């Protein structure tokens, strides 16, 4: 018989307890009166002699209960049935995960990493399946698990070494947590593909410098699986200290620009004096030195600087140990002015208009200025000169002519948000309408001219002609036929029916597709509660065909609340209820700003290009834009990467619109119309934080961290242990032992009761 947890056998020593209890003379219960205690010594309970143990049967029963309990806790099993393998046949799945983020560029660190990779490959069992992956912001397979598994055992090590030789440190930001998560997923997937009877343990070996800037928070998304260990192998550079800086334009004056520079000296750095020099247009240093500063280790200092008269493209820091992050690039900001055209009636109180709320949404950014233009219906708003970076938001009541213009705008790539913010009313017949016109004595009535083919806008009516809502008393009423015809004009789609909702109190959004880009930012459980957004009324719209439509949100009645459709190169978005308080609580809710901002950014994204990119990421470029890299090195001592249009295509790994910002520097973007602009690409500043990360941070998220590799003996032992566990769980001898313990304990109790009964009888007698 073998034991899974033999240490518990020590508990059998507790048998001494009952023996001692049997040996010790208990304090008698009976009391004898005596004339005087003056000749009596106090004699505490003493051990009796062995021959005086009176209750042998009880002692045996009690001792056996303890011994069997201890035996049960040792988890015994019959080992004869076990067929243990030597362990050589089952290798573990190991992923060597190599950090290729920018911080790995520090001097000596890559050599250390390659030496460590060799050690890791040499340590393992030849039967191990070793895959090689590298990571910065993303995981890059160099030798995938499936490929490694297909390789013969003899070639596995050489294949892994070859895969490692292909890797070189990049400029990207490392995301350790995400990379480990993906590796865990890969191993899990591999496990589920393979028969679980023969699969061994899994191990992820991370070779990295583990700097403080490496994020590991993503590990919280994964529950660490059993039998998977994480080994962290830290590689250190030859020099530890590092200083880095960030620069930001403060304000622009006529001749020079004012900048603010934050210089940070990492903890443990031995140097404290640094110099900052401006970089000229071609990457050359501009004398004299811009700043000479002293920053103690572990501290940051902010300095205001004035740029020289000549054109600058960045700054260089000298005086620290690590040069990989000593250059940062900056280009003069080219601020754009984006426009939001709000087309609606503006009479009545401001709170009843869409624009009133739209103007209060902070749509601008550091690079872009956003201007909200309020255009009354019927006013001329320069449609022909409308630039494509304009977003049109219009109320329900639009004229046919405006609908035509907006349709053309969308055809050319513009985005339009059409808000059906007025209650509908079934239109009367033409004759009836004419009759009404005669009766009320007005010339224009909404809808009548459209129906009769009038060219001018018909919805611009006076207050006297507006049917009033019984609820609000101030809303316009749109005729459903008008809306239907505008709908068809704008969306190039037929409408089956359109009518006003019949809501007793309010309706809510019954469903939201949080995968849709508009709602995606609100997917977190902290933000996805829309139950506070109540709609007092809305329009019930039924499409004749749903092809081409995207409906990311709908009311609890099932009718769409939010519709989108591509029209030409542009996009039409329709809200079937307004956001004014008369219509709903949408504008007053916390969801309004993020949703409108998201709609706006989606509408203008194709043109939004930051002037400051982070190296090692994909940035979306407008179609037709070509990229030209400036002719100077990204970092001192690096190869100059010549840039031309081919560079873009060659580096593109995904869509044609993505640009791989491989290394820091300044690139020139030339759009299809020939206009050029410059963009600075810098390394993520987190990579410069080279203070060491504590391993605890990784293990805190539940990862099973090991610091030393498993030896062959350990692997064999682990396999044996696994087998033993399996055998023990199948045999479950402990359960039978517990049953026996219960039986013996019962017998002991019965015996005790019987003896007590006898004693009582004897006393009575």
């Amino acid at each position, binding site marked *: 018989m073998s034991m899974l947890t033999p240490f518990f056998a020590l508990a059998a020593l507790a048998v001494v307890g009952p023996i001692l209890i049997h040996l010790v003379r208990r304090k008698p219960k009976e*009391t004898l009166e005596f*004339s*005087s205690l003056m000749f009596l010594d106090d004699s505490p309970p003493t051990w009796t002699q062995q021959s005086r143990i009176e209750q042998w049967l009880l002692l045996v029963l009690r001792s056996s209960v303890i011994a069997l309990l201890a035996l049960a806790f040792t988890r015994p099993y019959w080992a004869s049935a076990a067929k243990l393998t030597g362990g050589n046949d089952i290798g573990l799945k190991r992923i060597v995960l190599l950090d290729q983020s920018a911080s790995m560029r520090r001097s000596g660190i890559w050599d250390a990493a390659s030496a460590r990779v060799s050690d890791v490959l040499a340590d393992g069992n030849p039967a191990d399946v070793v895959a090689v992956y590298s990571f910065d912001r993303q995981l890059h397979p160099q030798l995938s698990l499936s490929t490694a598994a297909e390789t013969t055992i003899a070639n596995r090590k050489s294949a892994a070494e070859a895969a490692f030789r292909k890797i070189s440190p990049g400029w990207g930001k490392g995301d350790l947590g995400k990379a480990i998560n993906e590796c865990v997923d890969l191993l899990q997937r591999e496990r589920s593909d393979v028969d679980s009877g023969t699969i061994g343990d899994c191990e992820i070996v991370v070779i990295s410098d583990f700097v403080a800037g490496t994020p590991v928070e993503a590990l919280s998304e994964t529950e660490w699986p059993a039998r998977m260990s994480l080994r962290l192998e830290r590689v250190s550079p030859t020099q530890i200290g590092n200083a880095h800086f960030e620069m930001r334009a403060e304000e622009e004056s006529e001749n020079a620009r004012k900048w603010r520079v934050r210089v940070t000296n990492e903890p443990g750095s031995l140097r404290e004096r640094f110099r900052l020099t401006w970089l000229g247009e071609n990457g050359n240093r501009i004398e004299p030195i811009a700043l000479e500063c002293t920053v103690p280790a572990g501290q940051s200092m902010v300095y205001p600087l004035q740029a020289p008269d000549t054109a600058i493209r960045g700054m260089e820091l000298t005086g620290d140990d690590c040069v990989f992050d000593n250059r940062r690039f900056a280009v003069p900001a080219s601020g754009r002015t984006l426009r939001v055209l709000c087309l609606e009636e503006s009479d009545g109180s401001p709170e009843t208009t869409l624009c009133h709320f739209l103007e209060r949404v902070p749509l601008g950014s550091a690079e872009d200025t956003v201007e909200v233009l309020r255009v009354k219906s019927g006013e001329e708003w320069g449609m022909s000169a409308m630039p494509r970076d304009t977003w049109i938001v219009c109320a329900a009541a639009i004229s046919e002519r405006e609908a035509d213009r907006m349709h053309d705008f969308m055809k050319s790539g513009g985005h339009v948000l059409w808000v059906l913010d007025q209650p509908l009313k079934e239109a009367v017949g033409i004759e009836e309408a004419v009759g009404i016109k005669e009766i009320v004595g007005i010339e224009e009535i909404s809808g009548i001219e459209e129906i009769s083919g009038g060219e001018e806008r018909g919805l611009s009516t006076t207050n006297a002609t507006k049917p009033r809502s019984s609820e609000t008393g101030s809303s316009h009423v749109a005729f459903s036929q008008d809306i239907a015809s505008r709908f068809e004009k704008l969306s190039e789609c037929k409408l089956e029916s359109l009518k006003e909702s019949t809501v007793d109190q309010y309706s809510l959004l019954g469903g939201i597709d949080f995968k849709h880009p508009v709602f995606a930012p609100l997917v977190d459980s902290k933000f996805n509660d829309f139950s506070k957004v109540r709609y007092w009324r809305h329009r019930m719209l039924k499409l004749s065909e749903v092809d081409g439509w995207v409906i990311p949100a709908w009311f609890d009645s099932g009718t769409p609340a939010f519709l989108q459709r591509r029209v030409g190169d542009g996009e039409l978005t329709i809200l079937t209820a307004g956001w004014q308080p008369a219509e709903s609580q949408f504008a007053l809710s916390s969801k309004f700003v993020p949703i409108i901002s998201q709609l706006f950014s989606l509408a203008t994204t194709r043109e939004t290009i930051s002037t400051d990119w982070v190296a090692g990421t994909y940035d979306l470029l407008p179609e037709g834009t070509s990229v030209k890299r400036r002719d100077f090195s990204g970092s001192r001592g690096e190869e100059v990467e010549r840039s031309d249009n081919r560079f873009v295509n060659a580096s593109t790994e995904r869509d044609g619109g993505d640009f791989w910002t491989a290394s820091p520097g300044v690139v020139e973007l030339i759009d299809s119309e020939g206009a050029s602009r410059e963009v600075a690409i810098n390394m993520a500043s987190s990579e410069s934080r080279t203070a060491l990360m504590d391993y605890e941070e990784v293990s805190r998220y539940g990862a099973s961290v090991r610091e030393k590799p498993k030896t062959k003996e350990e692997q064999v032992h682990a396999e044996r242990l696994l087998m033993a566990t399996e055998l023990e769980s199948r045999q479950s001898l402990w359960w039978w032992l517990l049953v026996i313990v219960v039986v013996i304990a019962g017998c002991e109790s019965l015996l005790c009761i019987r003896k007590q009964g006898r004693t009582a009888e004897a006393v009575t007698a």
Partner: protein
Amino acid sequence: MTDSRIPSSWVDMGTLMAIQDLQWRAKTVVDGLNTGMHRSPLHGFSVEFSEYRPFSEGDDPRSIDWKLFARSDRYYIKKFEDETNRRCYLVVDQSKSMEYRSIAYSKLDYARTLAATLAYHLIQQRDAVGMVTFDSEIADVQTARFRTGQLKRLLSLLERTPSGDRTDLRGPLCQVAELVRQRSLMIVISDFLVSTEELRVPLGYLAARKHEVVLLRVLDPNEIEFNAARPVMIRDMESGGEKFVDPRSVADSYRRKFNEHESSLRGVVEPLGIAYHVMRTDSPLDASLVEFLGNRDRTAAVRSGNPSRSSKNETNTTMETASP
């Protein structure tokens, strides 16, 4: 405690203790003593004429010898030896420790019987007998007198229920020494389970007042031998204190200490000329009495230099010895 000199008992102690009436019990013992001897131990003890003296004011007119008045027309008082000298005080310990028993009757039963027997016997001899009972302090005092009903009074004192949370011999004996100014025979009946040092002073007082003191130590056989079958919690009958006692480990120590105490007690009484005798409750009362009287007689003969005197009249001699 068995001794070949101890006469065989005339009375079964179990039967004797079964007699409820203390006087009857005493009478049984004394009668037994009388029956078993060729000569009564009380015989020859008579009222002997001592002298005449003229009547003076304040004398009891009952003691006037009227016959002599008839003859001489003068008032004379007739004085006898016994009236002037014979006094006996029975000092009986009635503390709770005396209630201990390991046989059918307790030490107190035994002590009562002993005191009653002595009182009966002495009154039969026309001695003035008094009694002092005590526990932690003096409970009752009956002055020594020879008159009708004295025995009943004495016996009634013996019926008292024992009390007191300790035995204090020093206080009561000192008080007795102060109370009894005339020379008397002091028979102290107790278990003397107190520190011997406590006894030294009061016994010294008594001896200094020329009393003849006799200590009769009544002990239960288990108090002497201390036999217990198994470990037991022992509670002091007086103080209520408890001790866990394993007889296997403490019996020897108990006996040693008891013997030391016994020797120490003898060491206290012998220099003072005080008679001391241990009376086991399991030995017959009459036999113990005879043995004690025999010892006393031998001791007195040695003192007086006439050993042959003891063989003539043991008890009488003893009691005479008791007279100063």
